[in-house]
């Protein structure tokens, strides 16, 4: 297995939410990604993240650290998708969610270009009663390209392991049983609670489930509706509906995500 000799190109990007006196305290540290507070309430915060620099170029190693305090909810919205350009790059997320906390991250497509080789690691550690909902869309090759290699690992624990999986795939190699001839693997991943599943969803042994679509195009996936339903289940035990606007002003073209290297950053 290839070991990437990359070192972080910048300080970690950090997002933290902790209980406060009237409203939650939010800590934001800009790294290669710039987090921006959209809204916060008595127990929840919504944060948008955008690229603060060209990403992901050869040798880039992005680290994102997330901390959700006990009883708090953090809603993360991607501003644009991510493109892993030719060369090797890595993207690592480490999230800790305190007791009863909630982490929701509606990720936009992560596209590995034809000559890109990208390593993703997502580590989610849930405290007692904590839960998370993650959207993860991995795309091998930009539109019309054949290629792109990814090594994407996810480890989620709550006391013991909930879900441990690692996808190693290449857009140039049709892998029957892995991705087949598909270039898009789109997933909604619920951890720490049981969302309303339908036949075909992966129902984990521990509380959690994965709705997953393999395809050729991200826009062909119907997972936006699954995200909405599973999100509603996660939030319905949090009291009255949140007054955070549910509009999604940052949603771009989901098939060809906004290119972070184009300099599209939050104002």
């Amino acid at each position, binding site marked *: 297995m290839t070991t990437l000799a990359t070192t972080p190109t910048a300080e970690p990007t950090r997002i933290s939410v902790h209980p406060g006196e009237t409203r939650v305290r939010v800590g934001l540290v800009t790294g290669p990604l710039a987090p921006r507070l959209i809204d916060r309430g008595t127990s929840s915060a919504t944060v948008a993240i955008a690229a603060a620099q060209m990403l992901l170029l050869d040798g880039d190693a992005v680290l994102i650290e997330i901390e959700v305090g006990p009883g708090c909810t953090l809603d993360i919205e991607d501003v644009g998708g991510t493109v892993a350009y030719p060369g090797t790059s890595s993207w690592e997320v480490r999230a800790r969610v305190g007791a009863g906390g909630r982490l929701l991250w509606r990720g936009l497509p992560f596209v590995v270009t034809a000559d890109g080789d990208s390593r993703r690691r997502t580590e989610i550690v849930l405290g007692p009663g904590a839960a998370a909902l993650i959207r993860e869309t991995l795309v091998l090759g930009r539109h019309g390209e054949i290629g792109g290699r990814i090594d994407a*690992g996810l480890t989620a624990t709550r006391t*013991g*392991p*909930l*879900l*441990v*999986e*690692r*996808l*190693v795939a290449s857009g140039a190699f*049709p*892998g*029957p*049983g*892995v*991705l*087949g001839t*598909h270039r898009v*693997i789109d997933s909604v991943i619920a951890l720490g609670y049981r969302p309303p599943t339908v*036949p*075909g*969803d*992966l*129902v*984990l*042994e*521990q509380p959690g489930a*994965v709705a*997953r679509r*393999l395809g050729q195009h991200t826009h062909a996936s119907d997972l936006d509706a699954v995200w909405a339903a599973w999100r509603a289940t996660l939030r319905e035990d949090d009291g009255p509906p949140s007054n955070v606007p549910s509009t999604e002003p940052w949603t771009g073209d989901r098939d060809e995500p906004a290119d972070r290297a184009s300099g599209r950053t939050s104002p």
Partner: protein
Amino acid sequence: MTPSAGTVAMMLADARLPSGGHAHSSGMEPALLGGMPPAASAEFLALRARTTALVDAGTAVAAMRAVLDGSLIQGSGLAAVETAWAARTPSLAMRTASRDLGRGLLRLARRIWPTAEGIDALGGAPARPLVLGVIAAEVGMGAEDLVRLAVYDDIASAVAALLKLDPRDPVDGVTLVLGACASVEPLLAPVAGIWSPDDIPSLAAPQAEAWAEQHAATHRRLFRG
């Protein structure tokens, strides 16, 4: 008289073993019903060997070590191994198939090795690799042999099913088994060295998982998984 570990390994890999293995296709029937062309079988098997089969092989090794490490024998060790396996096996259909196989193998093992350490901690329907690990600990099987046994058995079951579902020269089937097993040979030593359940491999086969879920819901099937 105690049978040698080598004899036991051959017996466990023998399709004639009365443990219910003939009812399973190691994902081959789900793949074919899911639309995989039979011509892709060699690639499918090589990927099965390095994904699902290595998860199971690593689980068997971790289970064996949980039994051999006296501090873990009170059930908690094997329970942690099963939790680690389940976290790496997100498809309920695949977990059910493995536990179906595990139940059959455990029934046999309880007759032959009734006092084997750890056997009482397995419950009624453990995942198959846990039973393999307990047997391996009892008979003193080497870890690499255990890994090869787990991989070989999985692949051989898939090919036996392929010969029924897409009849062909049986010698071609033998070639497929040997090819898939050889393809993961360089990966086996690290798997054999596993002690902690955290180190069990976790390479995923998402398309096979989707096929397994579809297969579990169909009535047009010869095999259980």
